[in-house]
C-alpha cells in the first residue's frame, strides 16, 4: 500500500458525517448540472419556446404568460448548479444547506419542466395549486406524528387514522351535513388516537405493532363497510363538500393568490394549525411539558409532570388532527370515499415529520415538497413526456426514502422516542 493510499484511508476514517454529507451534496450539484446541460440543453427541441401560464382562466389578471427558450433556461440553471457545487466544495453553506438544496431542486425541476414543455404551454400555477392542495393531508399526517413523537410515542397508525376519518367524514357528512361530518371525522381520529394511546401507554404494546394493527384494522373495516354499506347505499357516499372560500384582495395576488387564498377551510385550517402548534410547542407551558416528556420522561416525572396524562392528551390531540386531514381527503376533495384511498399518505406524513425535523413549519415545508412530487406526476401526463407514468408515480416514495436515509442531514428525534415509560 502506498502512502497516498494510507492517507486516503486515514482521511476516510477521520471524515465526519458533515464532511461526508458535504461531499455527497457537492456530487449532487455537479451531477445535476451536467445532467441539465446534456439532457435538457442539448435536446434538439430545446429551441422551441415554452410557455408557463401563471394565471388561471377567470383570474383578474389573466393571462399572465412566461415565455422562454428552454435551451437558455437549461444553460443558466446548469451554470447556477455548478456554482453551487463549487461553493459547497470550498466552504459549504452551513445552516442554510437544506434551503440551498431545496432551491437547487426547484431550479432543476424548472429546467425539467421547460424541457418537457418545449413548444407547448403548461399551467405552472395549476401545478403549484395542486401541490398545495395535495400537501394538506400530508401536513396533517406529519403534524399528528409530531404531536405524538414530541411526547415519545411513535405513531405508525396515522395512515389508518386518516383512512378511518375519511370514511366516517363521508358517511356522516352524507346523512347529517358536512359540518357534522367534519366533527365525526375528528371524533373518529380522536378515538383511534385514544386506542393507540391505551395500547402503548396502558398495555405497553410495542408502539410500531400497535400502529400497524390500527392500520390493518382501519383498512379492513373501511373496505368492508365500503363494499357492504356504501356499495348498496350510494346515498351514503355523497356528502356535501366544502367549497372554495376566496379571501378578498389577497386572492388577486398572481400565483400566490391561487395557491393559498382561493381554497377550502382545510388548507386554511392546516396553516392555522401549523402556526398554533409552533407557538404552543415552543412558547407555552404545555409545549415545554410535552417536550420534556419526550426528551426525558423520568426528569419530567420527578418535577411533577404527569407523564401518562401528557402522553394521552397529545396522542389524542394528534388523532384529532389526523381526523381533520382525513376529512380533507373526502369532504374537502372528491367527496367520495374509495377503498384504501390514502395510498400511503400517512407514511409520507411521517417522512415529512422526519424531513421537517419534528418542527411544525418544517413539516409544512416537507409536505409541500411531497405535494409537489405528486402534483408534478398528475400534470406531466398532459405534456406527454417520454417518461412512463409509473416512474412519476414512484417519485414521492423515492423522495421519502432519500429523506429518511438522511441526504437532507441527520435529524435528531426526541430522546425518549419509541420507549414506554414505566413509573417506579
Amino acid at each position, binding site marked *: 500500500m502506498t502512502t497516498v493510499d494510507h492517507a486516503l484511508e486515514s482521511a476516510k476514517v477521520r471524515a465526519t458525517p458533515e464532511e461526508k454529507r458535504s461531499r455527497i451534496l457537492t456530487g449532487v450539484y455537479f451531477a445535476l448540472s451536467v445532467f441539465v446541460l446534456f439532457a435538457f440543453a442539448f435536446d434538439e427541441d430545446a429551441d422551441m419556446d415554452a410557455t408557463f401560464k401563471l394565471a388561471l382562466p377567470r383570474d383578474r389578471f389573466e393571462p399572465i404568460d412566461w415565455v422562454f427558450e428552454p435551451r437558455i433556461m437549461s444553460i443558466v440553471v446548469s451554470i447556477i448548479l455548478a456554482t453551487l457545487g463549487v461553493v459547497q466544495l470550498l466552504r459549504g453553506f452551513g445552516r442554510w444547506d437544506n434551503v440551498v438544496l431545496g432551491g437547487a431542486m426547484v431550479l432543476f425541476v424548472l429546467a425539467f419542466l421547460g424541457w418537457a414543455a418545449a413548444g407547448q404551454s403548461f399551467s405552472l400555477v395549476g401545478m403549484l395549486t395542486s401541490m398545495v392542495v395535495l400537501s394538506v393531508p400530508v401536513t396533517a399526517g406529519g403534524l399528528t406524528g409530531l404531536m405524538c413523537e414530541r411526547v415519545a410515542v411513535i405513531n405508525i397508525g396515522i395512515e389508518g387514522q386518516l383512512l378511518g376519518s375519511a370514511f366516517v367524514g363521508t358517511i356522516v357528512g352524507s346523512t347529517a351535513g358536512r359540518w357534522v361530518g367534519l366533527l365525526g371525522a375528528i371524533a373518529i381520529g380522536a378515538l383511534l388516537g385514544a386506542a393507540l394511546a391505551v395500547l402503548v401507554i396502558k398495555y405497553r404494546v410495542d408502539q410500531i405493532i400497535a400502529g*400497524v394493527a390500527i392500520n390493518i384494522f382501519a383498512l379492513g373495516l373501511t373496505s368492508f363497510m365500503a363494499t357492504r354499506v356504501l356499495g348498496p347505499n350510494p346515498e351514503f357516499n355523497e356528502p356535501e363538500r366544502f367549497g372554495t372560500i376566496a379571501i378578498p384582495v389577497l386572492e388577486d395576488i398572481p400565483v400566490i393568490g391561487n395557491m393559498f387564498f382561493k381554497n377550502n377551510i382545510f388548507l386554511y385550517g392546516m396553516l392555522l394549525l401549523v402556526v398554533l402548534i409552533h407557538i404552543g410547542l415552543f412558547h407555552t407551558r404545555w409545549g415545554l411539558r410535552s417536550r420534556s416528556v419526550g426528551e426525558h420522561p423520568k426528569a419530567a416525572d420527578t418535577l411533577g409532570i404527569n407523564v401518562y396524562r401528557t402522553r394521552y392528551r397529545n396522542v389524542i390531540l394528534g388523532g384529532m388532527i389526523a381526523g381533520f386531514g382525513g376529512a380533507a381527503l373526502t369532504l374537502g376533495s372528491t367527496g367520495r370515499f374509495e377503498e384504501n384511498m390514502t395510498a400511503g399518505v400517512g407514511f409520507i406524513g411521517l417522512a415529512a415529520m422526519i424531513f421537517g425535523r419534528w418542527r411544525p413549519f418544517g413539516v409544512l415545508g416537507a409536505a409541500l415538497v411531497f405535494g409537489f412530487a405528486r402534483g408534478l406526476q398528475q400534470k406531466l401526463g398532459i405534456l406527454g413526456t417520454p417518461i412512463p407514468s409509473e416512474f412519476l408515480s414512484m417519485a414521492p416514495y423515492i423522495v421519502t426514502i432519500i429523506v*429518511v436515509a438522511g441526504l437532507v442531514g441527520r435529524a435528531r*428525534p426526541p430522546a425518549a422516542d419509541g420507549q414506554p415509560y414505566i413509573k417506579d
Partner: protein
Amino acid sequence: MSERTTMDQITGVGGRLRDALLVPTLALITALLIGGLIIAVTDVDILRLWGDDPAEAFKQTLEAVGGAYKALFVGSLGSVNAISETLFAATPLILAGLAVAVGFQAGLFNIGAEGQMVIGGMTALFLGFTFDAPTIILLPITLLGAIVGGAFWAGIAGLLRAKTGAHEVITTIMLNFIALFLAQWLLKTSVFQQTGRSDPISKPVNEGAQLPRLFGDDYRVTVGLLIALAAAGFVQWLMYHTSIGFQYRTVGANPDAAKYAGMNVVWLTVAVMATSGALAGLAGANQILGLPPYEGTTAFSGGIGFDAIALALLGRSKPLGVVWAGLLFGALTAGGRQMQGVERIPIDLVEVIQALIIVFIAAPALVRSIWRIKTTDEGTGQITTGWSA
C-alpha cells in the same frame, strides 16, 4: 406461582402448553365475536328493521352472523375440497409469515414482505416464460430467481438501515409502493406483456415452471405447500442450530452486545433482511407459479405480505408457530372466500379479525381482563426500536 409450579411438575409441559395456547385461542375467539358484531351492525336493511320489529330484526341478525360463520367453517374445513383450499391459501401465508418472523427474531420489522413478494414473483415470472425446460430443471431455477429477487429488494432496506439509520418500517413500506409501480410498468412492456393484450397481463409461464399439484387436478393445493413446510424447517435449523442464526438472534436481542462481541452488525442487518426477503420472494413466486392461468397481474401479491405480520405475531415468530398460524389464516381466507361468495359478506372482514388478533396477542392483559383469567403471558413486549437506532 406455586399453583403453576405444581401444574408443571404434574403435567410436565402442561402448564406451559396451557399458557402458550390460552391467550392465542381466546384472542381468536374474541376477534371472531367482535367480527360477528361488525356483521350485525353493518347490515343497513336489518338496522332499519329494528325500529319496526325488534324481534324479527334480532332473528335476522342472528341469521346473518350465523350464516356468515357457517360459511366460514364450511369453506375452510367442511369438505375435502375445503381443506385443500385451506392448505392452498396457507402456502403463501406460511412463507410470508416466516419472512416477517425472521425479521422479528433479529429485531427488524419487515413490513415490506408485500413488495418483496412482487419483486420475487416478477423475477420468477420472467424466468418462467423466458426459458423452457422440464420441471426438474426449470422450477428450481425460477424459485432461485424469486429468492434472489426478494432478497435483493429487502436487502436495499437492510443496507439503508445499516448504513444510514433509515428505519426499515418506512423504507420497506415505500419499497412496497415502488415495487407495485415497477410491476405495473413491467407488465406493460413488450418483454412481459401477453401478445395481443392492452392491459397489464403477462405471458403465462411455461409448464416446467408451474408448481405441480399434490392430489390431482381436482384439488388446488400444490407442491408449494411442501416448499413452505421445508422453508419452516430450514428457518428452524438456521435460527436455532447454526452460528448465523445465533448472530441474528443476538443482534435482535441486543445490538450493542452483538457489536462488542465482534459481530458485524452492518452485514448482519443486510443478511437478516435478505433472508427475510428471500422467503417473501418465494411466497410471491407461489402466487404466480401455483395457480392457473400462471400469469402475472398487477395484484398478484394480494395483501398477503400484510397478513404475514399478524401471522408472525400470532405464531410468536417461531417457525412451528408460524405454520400453525398460517394454517389458521389459510382457513380464515378460504372460509372468507366462501363467506363472500355465498353470504355476500366482504372478505375484508378477515383483515379486521386479523388486526384484532394482533391487538389481543400483543396486549394479553386485554384478553385477561375480558375473560377474567390468569396467565403469565407477557405479550410481545418491545420488538422494535425508535428511528435513531
